[in-house]
């Protein structure tokens, strides 16, 4: 029973990791961009929400909803004014730019918010749980998982049912030809990064409520996100969700053996999966 409980906790933790990962999966899918600042951007989102809730006295959920459009604009501008200039056939510039950005954001947060730990208080919901048979399910972890499922559904809707989604998929196939169809691909990219940061904003909310945060934890979120994306296989949002869940379960199982082993267990499972399935569990048929 303890085992099942541990796995269940892991699945719900996986929801959080999927939220970390979906934005990364999106930008990679659309423009082959690996954003090394993704973890720090999530953290930036958390601090935006904390600030909105703290200094404007907005209720946490409202603060998060206000933060989402801010994140969109941030992502849009980031892509438009910075990343679009780095995206060419050479993979070095985007890596350097996003790595620089990661350091910039990390230290910017440090300069503004100090190294102190903070946490977004939801006024008690974070401690609540309900029993299902012998199992105890936390309200907040469950909400996180549901949010991740909802985000996957929404992203899939956008990707497969809308004109914008067609542009997303078409641009990753052949950006030049898409411009012949009248699309400004730079704009498509900007919207994609905007959406990726909205997803990061959702992740940011749950990150800040789940445990306390400080400016230095961004890179670790990037690595979890990255692992979830790779485990799931590039190019499928459901795959990314499952990748996050596998990572979450691996971590909680590892953590139940020895708390210090939690993160390491996740890394080891990731490496093992990559050895067995170099293209991840659910690779896309193309490329």
């Amino acid at each position, binding site marked *: 029973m303890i085992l099942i409980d541990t796995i269940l906790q892991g699945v719900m933790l996986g929801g959080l990791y999927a939220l970390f990962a979906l934005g990364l999966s999106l930008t990679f899918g659309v423009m082959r961009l690996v954003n*090394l600042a993704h973890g720090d951007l999530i953290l930036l989102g958390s601090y935006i929400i904390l600030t909105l809730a703290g200094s404007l006295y907005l209720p946490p959920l409202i603060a998060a909803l206000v933060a989402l459009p801010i994140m969109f604009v941030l992502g849009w501008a980031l892509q438009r004014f910075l990343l679009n200039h780095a995206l060419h056939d050479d993979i070095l510039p*985007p890596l350097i730019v996003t790595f620089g950005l990661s*350091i910039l954001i990390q230290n910017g947060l440090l*300069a503004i918010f100090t190294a102190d730990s903070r946490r977004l208080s939801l006024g008690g919901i974070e401690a609540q749980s309900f029993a299902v048979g012998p199992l105890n399910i936390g309200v907040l972890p469950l909400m996180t998982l549901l949010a991740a499922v909802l985000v996957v559904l929404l992203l899939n809707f956008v990707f497969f049912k809308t004109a914008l989604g067609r542009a997303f998929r078409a641009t990753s196939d052949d950006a030049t030809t898409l411009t012949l169809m009248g699309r400004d691909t730079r704009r498509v990219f900007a919207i994609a990064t905007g959406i990726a940061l909205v997803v990061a904003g959702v992740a940011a909310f749950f990150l800040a409520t789940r445990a306390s945060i400080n400016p230095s934890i961004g890179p670790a979120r990037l*690595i979890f996100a990255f692992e979830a994306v790779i485990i799931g296989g590039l190019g499928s949002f459901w795959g990314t969700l499952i990748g996050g869940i596998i990572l979450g379960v691996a971590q909680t199982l590892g953590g139940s053996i020895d708390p210090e082993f939690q993160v390491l267990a996740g*890394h080891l499972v990731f490496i093992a999966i*990559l*050895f067995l399935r170099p293209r991840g569990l659910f690779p896309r048929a193309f490329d």
Partner: protein
Amino acid sequence: MTEHKWSLTSSTRESRIFATLAIVAVLLLIAAPWLVSRGLIRDLFQIMTLLVLAQCWNLLAGYAGLISVGQQAFVGIGAYVFFSFAVFMPIPPALAILAAGIVAAGIGVAAASFTFRLQGAYFAVGTWVVAEVVQLTLAKQSVLGGGSGMSLPREFRETMPGFGILREMGFSKSAAIDVIAYWMVLLLCVVTILVIYRFMRTPAGLGLGAVRDNVIAARSVGVNATRLKWLVYLGCNFITGIAGALIFMQKQRVSPDTAFSVIDWSAFVIFVVVIGGIGTIEGPIIGVLIFYLLQSFLADLGPIYLIILGALGIVSILVAPSGIWGLISSRTGIVLFPIRHNLKKLG
């Protein structure tokens, strides 16, 4: 028909002047402990360790298309191997340093069997994962001091080559360590640059350089010659491991956080190479000097300093992708480490 004599040469006038100056500079650097303050020796030590790491990263990313953000793994491994020998099995320090390089290269093989499966940009994050795994694993080992690390035993310090002589010459104990570490890293630095330079002039190295000139092909496809990629990766990790041993020998303390610092051993290194000029031997040298200047003026600013550095890296890769050296050499045509051969008419 007049007869001409031809000679195949790769040197340029500047390169010969530069070589002479470089020899003088190295001689001065050897003598530096008697010429300059201990503080400057420490600074020079730092500059040269950074230069060694930068040359390695440059070889990986600039020539072999292996963009790593996880070289701190090998710095940390080198440091921990060195300290492990010092604490548990005191062998001559020089051997311990060599062992640090060998173990780093060996773990590099294991790491590569995983990271080489990742393409392009994903390789970068994969190397980061490896560094995390190594750090977390080491931090869990209570024999190695867990999260708080280890100190270099006093007795071991005293077995350093030259320690006794330096003490007799009036250097304090820790000054003697500084000087020994400084000379060692100077040696490492000179050897690293010469080895890379020699390597770049071998057919294999020229091949790498040729692919490099078509940078896009080199980085996106990865250099075709897989064996070459392995060779470069192994060599760099070996040198990086040795550098790690020396860095922490000088600090006389090691802990997981310092030994595996992304900022110190990846971010600084990457910015040195990018700002100086990737894909050349000269670039990292320029980069390290600029870095040192920035640091001496701005390091007191703490996070602001890092913000400036991050911004500089971004601006540099966008505005001058071939770095400051790229700008200099494309304006002036100066080449200090000539790689290509020129046919020269003698008669």
